[in-house]
């Protein structure tokens, strides 16, 4: 039986506008485009699941098709669903397993971070990964931190948070915990400047990399864990995430894709810039000093899909002395773990090229973006350092 809410493919008028804006079908003819893979093929798949096409694996799930669609068809969702419902996985995938277990791998790697960072930088190891794990040689993995953000929080930050009357719950995500502790510190600094104390609940990986690699059951387990953990106590406080993809999963994908009940948290989850925008709007703007920086802003695909770009821009425009060049909306091509796979490397690079050219043309001092994997991709392919909006605010707070 088809569920009535899943027939959005029937609203497709076959205008092909989605395929026009698909960065993957622009980069390769191996992917027939979102219209053909999504609403067109869905009719056939409903009739006979055997009619699934292996080209589905080329979809990065960037959701630009959904942004383009004039008829509000959930094209990326249809493709994503079909991919893992029908596509039989025949091969053993140690690489995909480790790539999608960001919290497991991160937890171990941070314990031995110096050794791990050293090893994954070695030419020999990179050749090995290229040949045996199918991870492209030119990939530069983000370095692991010496410790986790949670440990830092417990040791250095927690004691001072009870002094604030207003509270928010921070969903830090794996990247802050294992790869970018500083963003967590900066987040706490910014929240404190706004008069909010930061609390944390127990959390597991939000599930985005698991979904992207087809580990749907494991993603569901994580989601159920996160929903129940975030629901405990503090019913009023907002749950704020600094990762746009984590926020999108908690707020939308848990219910729309994993079909779980997240109603207890969905309304409370906010991506950080939207939370800040609302605070700024009500007059709660911390004292910031002029930065004197020229930066280019790249809008991540998933943030666009969430309608979040206007909030980030609104927040950034409030930072004094920040000359902002807003780049035309282009996909960076990394799409989470997609670009870290050898079979996708060329496509990923080809997709990102437009953005890299735009950045080079803008000649900024920094690039600003909300998403951690966009950050990795841009730093791998341009000479610029990429900052999170929260980092930029923290910089403006720090100036004496």
């Amino acid at each position, binding site marked *: 039986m088809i569920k009535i809410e899943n027939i959005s493919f029937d609203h497709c008028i076959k205008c*092909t506008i989605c395929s026009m804006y698909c960065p993957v079908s622009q980069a390769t003819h191996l992917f027939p485009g979102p219209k053909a893979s999504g609403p067109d093929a869905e009719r056939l798949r409903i009739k006979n699941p055997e009619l699934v096409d292996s080209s589905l694996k080329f979809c990065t799930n960037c959701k630009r098709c959904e942004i*383009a669609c004039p008829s*509000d068809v959930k094209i990326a969702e249809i493709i994503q669903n079909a991919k893992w419902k029908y596509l039989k996985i025949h091969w053993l995938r140690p690489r995909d397993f480790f790539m999608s277990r960001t919290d497991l791998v991160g937890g171990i790697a941070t314990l031995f971070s110096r050794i791990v960072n050293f090893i994954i930088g070695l030419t020999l190891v990179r050749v090995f990964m290229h040949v045996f794990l199918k991870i492209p040689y030119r990939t530069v993995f983000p370095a692991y931190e010496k410790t986790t953000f949670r440990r830092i929080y417990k040791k250095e930050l927690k004691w001072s948070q009870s002094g604030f009357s207003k509270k928010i719950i921070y969903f830090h995500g794996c990247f802050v915990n294992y790869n970018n502790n500083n963003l967590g510190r900066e987040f706490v600094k910014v929240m404190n400047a706004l008069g909010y104390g930061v609390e944390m609940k127990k959390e597991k990986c939000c599930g985005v990399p698991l979904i992207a690699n087809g580990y749907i059951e494991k993603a569901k387990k994580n989601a159920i864990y996160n929903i129940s953990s975030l629901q405990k106590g503090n019913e009023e406080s907002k749950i704020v995430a600094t990762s746009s993809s984590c926020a999108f999963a908690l707020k939308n994908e848990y219910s729309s894709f994993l079909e779980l009940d997240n109603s207890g948290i969905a309304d409370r989850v906010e991506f950080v810039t939207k939370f800040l925008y609302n605070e700024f709007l009500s007059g709660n703007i911390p004292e910031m000093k002029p930065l004197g920086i020229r930066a280019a802003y790249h809008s991540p695909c998933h943030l666009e899909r969430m309608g979040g770009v206007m909030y980030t821009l609104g927040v950034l425009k409030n930072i004094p002395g920040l000359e902002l060049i807003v780049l035309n909306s282009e996909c960076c091509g990394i799409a989470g773990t997609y670009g870290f796979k050898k079979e996708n490397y060329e496509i990923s690079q080809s997709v990102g090229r437009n953005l890299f050219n735009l950045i080079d043309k803008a000649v900024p001092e920094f690039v600003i973006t909300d998403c951690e994997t966009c950050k990795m991709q841009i730093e791998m392919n341009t000479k610029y350092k990429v900052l999170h909006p929260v980092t930029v605010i923290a910089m403006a707070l720090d100036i004496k």
Partner: protein
Amino acid sequence: MIYDCLIIGGGLAGLTCGIKCASHGLHTAIISGGMNSLHFSSGSIDIAGYNTKGEVIKKPFEYLKTMVKENSGHPYARTGIPGIKGSLNFITEKLSAEGITLSSNNDFNHFHITTLGTLKPTYLSQESVFSARVTDIVNSQQKIAILNFKGFRDYYPEQTAANLKKNTLFKDTEIVLGDISLPYYMNTEKNLHEFRSIDIARIFETERYLPRIAEEIKKASGGASAVSLPAFIGVNNYKAIRKKLEDMTGKFIYEIPSLPPSILGLRLDHALKNSFIKLGGEYIAGERVVSGSIKKDQVEFLTTKNSGNIPVTSKFYVLTTGSFFSGGLSAGFDSISEPLFGLKVKSENKRSKWYSRTFFDKKSHPFLGFGVEIDNKFNPVSESGKTIKNLFCAGSVLSGYNPVSEASGGGVAISTGFKCAERIIKEIKND
């Protein structure tokens, strides 16, 4: 952080309004749910193509002089003829800065050839659709070639030729039909039947294959001095590509708009969006406004699909949500409504009066003339009868004109969008 001007809908009207506002330094944003109808359009701008009897209008502005006197509810009556001209000059200048040249036949309309091979009157076109050279080729009845990409299933040159032959202008013209193909390219890639205009445009855009394509054009055109192709000779650098092809073949290259996605329309869309963003405008794609809250005679805030409990606010709002397809108007069983604000709509109550029994009726269907009622200041009226002073309306959400039977959609979108921007700029100055 409140916007000066928030535009709901990112089509031709919304973009025109946005560019004008942003060029005056206003903090402007456009919220656009899905891509606009330029993607379905011919890429030419119509002002007024047909009169009420369905006859072709030769000089649109002259016709409008009398029309606006007789039809005071028409959007053109509110923008005024100098208003239309001013807005067109503004937008052609902006497009030209982005590399798109639109030209007119002085004060006259010109024809463009449709996919089916019929002729449609229009006012502004890209150089591959209208130029002095085109007039010359048609008038001197030079031999023309109508070509297609072999296997491209969205276009049939035979049909174009057969319909053109029925027209007196082409009665005595010799028409050659033919195909061009790229066997080497096709062997390595996917099935050509899966190609849409955009895929072929991308082949042209690589420029790698242009010498080969030029050879194919020469071979297929049988000595004709002018060659038509479906509009797929590139999106962003189409000018350079066309120039190269013309130099290599020694022939004039004409473009016929293809089925959606329309490349001719896409060029305008890209250019307008670029222009808007360069001026500091925020183009928010993929977000949908779901409702607007009205308090007394003012819009208080908007709610979008993702805004939750954080209201989206602006000093002024512009409604350019389009007609039925884009959801700007909504049809119930026997009522037509404006879904975001519940504005007063001009329509017929009886469903049987919405449409004509003949599909291709010269007078078109009445429902195409339905829409929001506005006053001379472009403000709409709420359900309760109050004029909403910080909301303006433009484009095909408006009532009082029929874009299909009049061939006036582009002109109305640009001139009303522009006028709304002028009103807002004036109000903000007075503040």
